[in-house]
């Protein structure tokens, strides 16, 4: 039992290597590093619709704005094109997700000067994304404390 609690609690720590090994396997391989090196910015694909809480996961149509001409001989791009032709979306796996009892606005954080890398890590250097940024309550509160942002409960949770 003692070892069980230790394993459980150690598993909650943001061990980089473990997080990398646990990276979700995406239905089609995708490299953030490659795409960003071509001059794309994050918000070219991840749009921030009103009211600004969420960054969207791109639809197949967004991918196809470029890939109708680029790398069309790749089997993975052909898979993408097939999905577009069938009006079917790809079920990309989410890497980051805040719990249901937290509200978080991407827009508010961007306006306050945070960058994507602040929470999501070195995306430009990653072929495969994994949860390397700490978006636990501790991670959020530490950043808020350092940046002199409020750590009051109602900053992130609905008062009951």
């Amino acid at each position: 039992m003692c070892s069980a609690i230790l394993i459980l609690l150690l598993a909650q720590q943001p061990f980089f290597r473990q997080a990398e090994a646990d990276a979700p396997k995406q239905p089609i391989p995708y490299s953030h590093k490659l795409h960003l090196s071509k001059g794309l910015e994050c918000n070219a694909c991840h749009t921030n619709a009103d009211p600004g809480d969420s960054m969207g996961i791109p639809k197949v149509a967004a991918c196809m704005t470029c890939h109708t001409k680029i790398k069309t001989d790749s089997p993975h791009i052909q898979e993408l094109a097939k999905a577009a032709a069938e009006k079917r979306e790809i079920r990309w796996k989410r890497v980051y997700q805040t719990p249901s009892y937290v509200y978080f606005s991407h827009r508010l954080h961007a306006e306050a000067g945070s960058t994507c890398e602040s929470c999501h890590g070195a995306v430009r250097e990653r072929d495969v994304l994994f949860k390397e940024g700490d978006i636990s309550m501790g991670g959020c509160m530490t950043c808020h404390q350092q940046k002199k942002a409020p750590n009051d409960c109602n900053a992130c949770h609905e008062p009951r």
Partner: protein
Amino acid sequence: MARTFPVVIVGSGAAGGMAAWALTQLGMECCLLEAGPLIDIDKQRELRAVFDLPFRGFGTPERFLHVVQASEFDENLWAGEKENPYSYPPGDPYYWVRIRMAGGRTTRWGRASWRLSDLDFQAKDLDGFGENWPLKYDDLAHFYDRAETLFSVQGRNEGIPQLPDGKLLPDESPDSPANQRFIAAAAKRDIRITKPRRATGTLASSLNLLLPAAVESGKLKLVTNAVAREVTIDPVSGRANGVSFVDRRSRREFHVAAEAVILGASTLESTRLLLNSKSTRWPEGLANARGTLGRYLFDQFYVKSVVQAIVPEARASRGQSRVTGGAGYICRFRNLRRNEKHPFLRGYVYDFNSGSTPNPKYIRGVGEGMLRELSDLQSAGFSLTTMGEVLPRYENVASINPNLRDAWGIPSLHVVHRYTDNEHKMAEDSRQVADELCREAGFEVLESHAQMVPPGESIHELGGCRMGGDPKTSMLNRWNQCHEIPNLLVVDGSCFPSGGAQNPTLTILALSLRAAEHLADTMKRGDV
């Protein structure tokens, strides 16, 4: 269990977890009994989807009659009242909120971490009521320092005498314009306001901050699903020699032998355990020589949303206003000095929040009109909650109900706790002051009231096994040892002789740390 441990601890929350941490860091072996399971709290506290719930979010009938904090979405985390019944007099409900799992209620607490001061420890000196604590602030200051460091408490050190400074991570977040205006209005009345002090870090809990280090030391035997039934006594020496418990799932009976016993099972559970530990030597409950066990029960009363106001310039901002936002804490300002003329003893504090949207119950009208008004008031709200000191009274008592047992056959509690004129007058004073402060700050007051929540609902139950210098009127000495049985300690909130208005968890952590280290020291010297 075949072996004898140096120490057995009951409860793994703030009190028991801290005792386990302190003793194992000093190299002492402990056995820790926890009534609930060991679970992955991150997984379990994720709210379930409404379509997965048998009652679609309305709650399992009668499972949590008195746990207003629980909902069907998270009811897997709370101790149900069918398995864990208790009683109270007709017409005087008592709300007993429990969590049974490793980490106890620190897995769900609000993280508010305040120190008491000598205004609280030596309160009798000022107004003559009750008993002073058998220790002073200076005795506990060092332990507060360490508890704050362990729990990464963030806040502001502002030199407020009734709220001593601590070892805090600085809170340099700005106050919103609405809060600044409120703070200025309060300052004109010499009322001090500070930012909330809260434990930070992921799951600032015994489960995450205390138990892992205790386990890692190799000195802790953690036994989960162990529902304590009784503290056992050596018939020859009269000393505590262990704890008997029931396995929660198999219902098999076990006993763990120990040279010393520490109870940190929570105010009411530790009291219940002692009351249930009867023998010919102790027919009224263990170490209960003078009938004080279970008595002087109290808590801190809440008046939730004592005032609900609106910040006028945040109207019509559709939630985009930068005028409101953030929280604050109004320190006690009543009866700080002798001879203040108020119709009540002691004092109260407030928590306040700005930037919320008022509950529709505050809006006049229905239908489209109400929706328009609500939309207009989005994020324009300002509300306060009173937290007041409750006087410990002999009449407020937890005793065993001979006709009621829990799912494991252990006799349950009957809790008698009534608020008196002192609390009612204090609540009314808090309503009046909050109302005036809001108006002086230029806010529109939608509603004010002085209706306290029922006793227990604040989940700050305290007393019942109090410390004191006199064995005739108290159960424990200044080191949390039973006067009558020095190798039996009670380190949770039941040991409080009085409690101020500050949230008690930090004081429980500090007291448990102090008591455990003293026990280790005396055991090594062979004095216990």
